Structure formats: C-alpha cells, structure tokens
C-alpha cells in the first residue's frame, strides 16, 4: 500500500489514522450490506440474508425499527419488512449506527466515560434526525448515523494519543476552554478532522463523513452543508441540555450561517426537543446493548 512507503509524522492526522485504522474497523457485515444494497439486481431477500447472518445486528435493528424513534403503528417483525417500511438505505445507515458503538473497545475509561460519551452521541444523532424530520428531509437516518458518529475522532485520540488527549481534557476542564480549540492548538487538527478521516477510510458515504468532519465548522462543508448544520446545531443543543458528556466543558458557539441555512424557527426548537426526549433512553439502550 502507498501509505506504507512514507511514514507520517508522529501525532499527525495521518499518523493517528494509520495507527487506529487497523484496530477500529467496521464489522465486515456492514461492507456486505453496502454492497448488496447498492447492487442493481439485489432484492429485499438478499438484504435480509446478509443481515440475518449477524443475529445481534438483526435483533438490534428490529428493536430500533420498533422503537419510539420510528413509532411505526404495527410491529416490524422481519428485516425484510423493515427494509420495506423504513427503506433500504435507511436500514444501511441504521446498521452503521448500531454497529459503530461496538467498534470502539478498550478506550481508557479514565479518559472517557463510554456511557456518557455514547449518551451524548446518540442524543446528538436523535436530535439531528429530529431536526431533519422537521425540515422534511428524505434521508433522516443518514443524519442520525452522522450524529452518532460525530465525535468518534475523540475516541481515536483517546486510543492513539491518550497522554496528550488527557492533558487537553484537563486543560479544557480547568481553563473552561473549548476542547476543539485546544486540540487544534496542540495538534493542528481537531477530533472532527480525525472522525471525518476515519469514516473516509471506512468508505462511509461522504454524506455522513463530511458532516462529521465539519460539525464544528458547517460552513466548510462543500457537499453536505445542510447535514453538517444539522449535526452542528444538534451537538450544541445536546451539550446545552447536558445530554451525555463528550469531554467538552464548554458549549461551542453556534455558527450563524448554519442556523440561517436550517431556517428552523426558534420557537420550533422546543417542540423538536420535546419530540426527542422520549426517544433518548430506549434508543440508547438498543444501540448500546448490554455494553457498559
């Protein structure tokens, strides 16, 4: 591989990705699912067949499909039905959301509390999805997945450069400074850059990867600024409401241009959040499974 020829500088973005890429990989079933969904001649049965091979994924997908997140009026008892009712690409995004929480294991607990970390991430995913639903967007599950993935860069940092990240966390807490600024100051890149780069390496569609990479700078998103804005606003909302914890002690500033792009009336936010709350605990439980 070309990347082995030149070794990236230590603590650089590439160095960080290279170091963790082989450790944190998406389950193979996700690639299979992607392929079968994109295959022009595949059918619902083909999708069912792929997913059914992973009993855990199947169970969690069905649980999610029947959760308040969707609020479907009757029971979705098969992957085939889920694919019909929810949609195949939506199912794919859900599979990504469901899978990713299991990918990051062995993160030093002294640096990050995985429970609160995922609480924040899942809350952000649900909120971003709710914002997208409000806007009548077609692919809300993609936004959901991006929301869940938006801070994975932090997990990568924890795993790859625990000492530096530990220092940054302490500095952020003690100085009440914005962690992302400290990251950039110290490393020259942020957890958003790391997350985006990792998803790219995972061959996650850009409609998910770019919003993750740009969730602190939605204006920088060249292809999916709207999706980036969803994540940006959802992240701020969840941090403001104290839903979960991702190591950030300060609520990041809202980009005005993103707010304007979303064109959501301020008084609609309360309604949206009211919608989000009942979905939080169950969705978190489903996605986290029995994980601590």
């Amino acid at each position, binding site marked *: 591989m070309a990347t082995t020829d030149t070794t990236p500088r230590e603590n650089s973005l590439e160095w960080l990705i290279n170091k963790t890429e082989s450790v944190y990989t998406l389950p193979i079933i996700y690639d299979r699912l992607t392929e079968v969904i994109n295959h*022009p001649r595949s059918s619902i049965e083909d999708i069912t067949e792929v997913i059914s091979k992973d009993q855990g994924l199947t169970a969690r997908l069905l649980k999610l499909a029947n959760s308040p997140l969707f609020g479907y*009026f009757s029971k979705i008892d098969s992957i085939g039905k889920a694919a*019909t*009712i929810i949609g195949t690409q939506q199912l794919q995004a859900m599979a990504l959301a469901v899978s990713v929480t299991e990918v990051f294991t062995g993160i030093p607990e002294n640096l990050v509390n995985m429970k609160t970390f995922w609480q924040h991430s899942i809350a952000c995913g649900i909120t971003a999805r709710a914002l997208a639903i409000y806007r009548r967007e077609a692919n809300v599950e993609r936004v959901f997945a991006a929301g869940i993935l938006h801070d994975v860069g932090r997990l990568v940092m924890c795993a790859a450069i625990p000492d530096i990240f530990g220092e940054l966390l302490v500095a952020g807490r003690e100085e009440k400074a914005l962690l992302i600024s400290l990251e950039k100051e110290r490393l020259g890149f942020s957890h958003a850059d790391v997350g985006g780069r990792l998803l790219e390496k995972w061959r996650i569609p850009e409609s998910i990867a770019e919003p993750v990479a740009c969730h602190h700078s939605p204006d920088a998103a060249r292809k999916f600024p709207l999706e980036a804005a969803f994540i940006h606003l959802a992240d701020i909302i969840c941090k403001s409401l104290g839903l979960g914890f991702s190591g950030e002690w300060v609520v990041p500033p809202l980009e005005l241009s993103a707010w304007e792009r979303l064109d959501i009336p301020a008084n609609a936010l309360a309604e949206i959040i009211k919608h989000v709350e009942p979905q939080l605990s169950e969705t978190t439980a489903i996605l986290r499974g029995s994980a601590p």
Partner: protein
Amino acid sequence: MNPVSRIMERAAFLEERVTYLEEANRNYVTLLDVLASTSEFQADLNREKSMEGIYRATLAQLGRLFPFREMGLLVNSADNSFNLAECEPPSCRDDLLEDVDKAIMDGIFAWALNRSQAITVPAPDGGCILLHVIATQNRISGMFIGRLCGAEKIIDAPALNALSNILHSSAYAMESGILYSMLREHLHTLEEKVQERTAELKAARDMAEAGALELKISNEQLCREIVERKRAEDELIKAQKLESLGVFAGGIAHDFNNILTSILANLSFARMQLSPSHTISKRLEECEKATVRASELTRQLLTFARGGEPVKKLIDPAPLIREAASFVLRGSTVRSIVDLPADLWCLEADAGQLSQSLHNLLINAAQAMANGGEVTVRGANESLDADNPHRLPLGDYIRITIEDHGCGISRENLARIFDPYFTTKSQGSGLGLASVYSIVKRHGGTVGISSTLGVGSSFDIHLPASPGKRPEGAAVKVTAELHAGGRILIMDDEDFIRAIATEILQYKGYEVASCADGREAVDLYRSARQCNVPYAAVILDLTIPGGMGGKEAAALILELDPDAVLIVSSGYSNDTVIANYQNYGFSGSISKPFDADTLARELERLIAGKL
C-alpha cells in the same frame, strides 16, 4: 479446490463484478441525466401558475426517473382528505384509487405521510407500490403514488433520493400555487371591495356634482339677482338723485320763474310802449328772447320739481306726437317724418309730461343734426311677454321711436346720457334727457337708446298702453258773454307779477283788480257780482303757497257764477290743470312767464269769444 478452479471461480466473480459495475454505472449515468434535466423541471414549475400544470410537470419528471406503469398525484384538500388530482395514464385512475384505499387500510399511507422519503410496498400483482409524501416543512400538499414492476428488486437508492428531491420541489411549487391562488382570491375580494367602494364614491361624486351643478345654477341665479339688485340700486340712486335734484331745482325754479315773468312782462310792456322803429325796441326784443330761453330752462327744472306721480289720464298719443314733432322742429332745418299706425293704442299718461319728453327728445335729435336732415318718429303697438329685453312686466305697450341721423353718442357717454346735468352741448342744461328718463319711469315705461357715432341715435320709449280704450272728447266750455274792455281780476301771490299784469291790462284798456290768494279772489268776485260790476275774466295763479290756489278758487267762483271766465296761470306748464284746464272749469290758460302780448291776446280771445 485446485488452483485452476480457484482462478476460474475468481474470474467468474470478477466478471460478475464487472457486469454489476457496468449496470450500476449505466444506472448512474441515467440518473445523472435525469438530474441534469431537473433545472428544466424547476423552470416548468416556476412557469406554471395552475396547479394542474404543476401536477403534470411533476408526473412527467418522475416518469423520466422511474418506469412507472401507473402513477398519480393525490392532493390534500382543506378538509384533510386526499383526492386523486392527476394520473398517468388516465385509465389507471380506478387502479390507483384502489391502491390508495389499501395503503390507507394498511396504515402505510399514514406512515408515508410522516416519512419524507419513498415508501415501497409490494403490490398484490407482483409489482410494487411507491408512496411519497409531497410536503414542505409547513404543509402536506399531497401524496405521490406510483406502480412499478418487479418488486423483488430493491430500488436504486440514489434514484429514490432524486425522487424525493423532485417531490420536494413539487411540494414547494404546490405550496406557492396554493398561496398564489389564496393571494389571487384575496386580491379578487379586494378588487370587489375596491369596485364596491369605487361605485359608492362615484355615486357620492355624482351626488356632489349634481349638488355643485345646483349650486352653480343657484349661484348664477344669485349673480343675476345681484346684478339685478345692483341695477335696481343704481336706478334707485338715480331716482333719488333726480328727486333731490328736483326738490332743489323746483324751489329755485318756482321763484325764478316768477322773477322771469316779471322781467318778461315788463320788457314786453316797455317795448309795447315804444315805436317798433325805436333803437331800444330791438334791444328789448333781444332781452325778451333771452328771458324766454331762461324760462325754457326753468320749465325743465320744474318738471323735476313736480316729482311724484304724474297725473294720468287716458289719452290718445298720436296727436300729441304729431303736435310735438311739428312744434319742436318748426322753423329748423330738420324735417320730421311721423309714422304712426292708425290704431295706435291709447294710454294712461300725463299728457303734459309726455309731450315734454317728446319735446326734449326731438330737440335733442334736431341738435344732433346741426346741418339738417330727417328725424323719424315711429309709433307701434307691442305686446311684451314676461321675458322681454326691456325688463318690463308682461303687458301691452306702445313704442315711440325717435331716430335721427346725427352725430351719434359715444359709448362712454351712452352710460351717462340720462344723468342729470350731463351734457355734451356747450349750451345744454343736462336736464333734457334726465327729465325724459324720470317721466317715462314714472309712467312705468322705459327709455332705450342705441347709437352709433357718426351714424345717428335712436331712442325707444315703451309706455304701458290701454288697448281698446279711447278718451272721451272733452267738452269745450262755452263761456258767457264778456264785455271787451271789461273788469279783470288778477290773483297772484307775487306782488310784482300782480303789478306788471295790472299795468299791462290797464294799458290794454281793462279795468284791473288784483288779490294775493284764492279766498280773496272769491270774495272779490262775489262782491263785484253783488254790486253788479262783475269781472269779465279772472286770472288765477294755480299755486299759492300757504293760501287757496287757483283750482279751488275756480271751483268756488264757478259755484257763484257757472259762466265765469277763468284763466289759469302757472309756471308749471306741464301741470295737469294747465294741460287740461277745461276739466277744471277754466276757459283758458297762460303759462308764466308770459309777455304782455300773450296775456293780452289770450284775454282778447276769451272775451271776444264770448261776444
């Protein structure tokens, strides 16, 4: 597994991948083409004002994206029911409605309403049914429903995203369309209201205009009335001017006339005693003439002095006119043409005043034609209606026109021509036309004038007529015998007149007695009769200030002696008693000032007439 079969398997796998990728590539190229045409579709939507147009454009675009066997658009009505507004092909309507009913029953329809993405469900005939809500974040405008073949295959995800995009655009277009039609409806209502208000305003304006017109008419009327009033005021002022002038003039004239009488009588008496060949005789004659001219002036003045109402009597104007024409123009270079209809109406008028007016007008005409010419006097009967240019009341009138061919009157002078003391003549009194004016006015008539400088003037007199009436012929009183050279009684309040008259008559051989007022005259007449030395004639002054006048005295004397010869004398030649002395029992009249001859001749005539 041997290496060959592994390679074969690998080759088959790769071949399969290539086929898949090629097919996927084809699909994406098609999809990109469809997306490229989206701008055209957007333009279609923007152009379309009608909802039907938006529906058709949407279905056409979706038809490019997917090979829908059947497709339709359900529109969300105000009552939240969904009605199939457009379908393609049109024959599929019932099929689609059946599918919709089933989707509603299954709850899929409700699900699709909440998911802003394509929902595909297997169709009973083996195909699949695709539902997609048409909504913006504000409003659910409708639902797309389409039937596809081959439910076993899953639908390409990017194509579904493209479908969502198209329907999102349609949703905005439909919302705009609804807003547009709402706006149009609102505008329509507004326009109706505007028209209503406009009609009301127009009605109000019409009313206002009618009011304004009325106002204008009444304003014009008012203006006319103001002009009329102003005219009347002017008339009044003129009349008052004339009246005060008259009072003033009258006072002077009365005294003045008596003085002239004395002067003239003395002059004529003096001349009578001289031989006509005497050089002084000629001078005295000139003095007499001047005195006569002066008396003419006082006569004019006395016309005003009389003032008040004329003493009207039914008279025939024709002889009056003829007499005036011949009298005034006699001896001048001006010839008169009198043109009177045989049936010229009679009128109630003061003959004296009327003849004075005619005199004045004729004198005026004659003076305008210094080099001679013709004055035409015409008479005519005229029945005027209420709206006549002379502003006279409706009725019968006679018109007397006196037309000269003289120098004419300038425009500015025309306006002042009837003003007292206005004259253009070096020797004019300025009273002639003013007195004409006041006389005619007092008779309820008008004087009109039209004149052109250098061509001539024409005076028009209108006087109220009494058609069908004729004056009875006045009985001429035949006086009793009188002895010439008999006794004469003179009654006059002025002693110098009594003195000169006495001298003249004594000179002529009469025995003369005189007294200062009527009462005395009656007493003298009675006592003379009783003494059998009656007076042959009595000369009675008509007006005795503070005493009995001639008229009363005459009546009393006639009671004593119905055959008494009574002569009335007065400075007021126009006085009705003078003019119609017979009616008052007088046998003759003599106007002051008189000269010796006139007095003597009149007495001789009357006394001789008795013989």
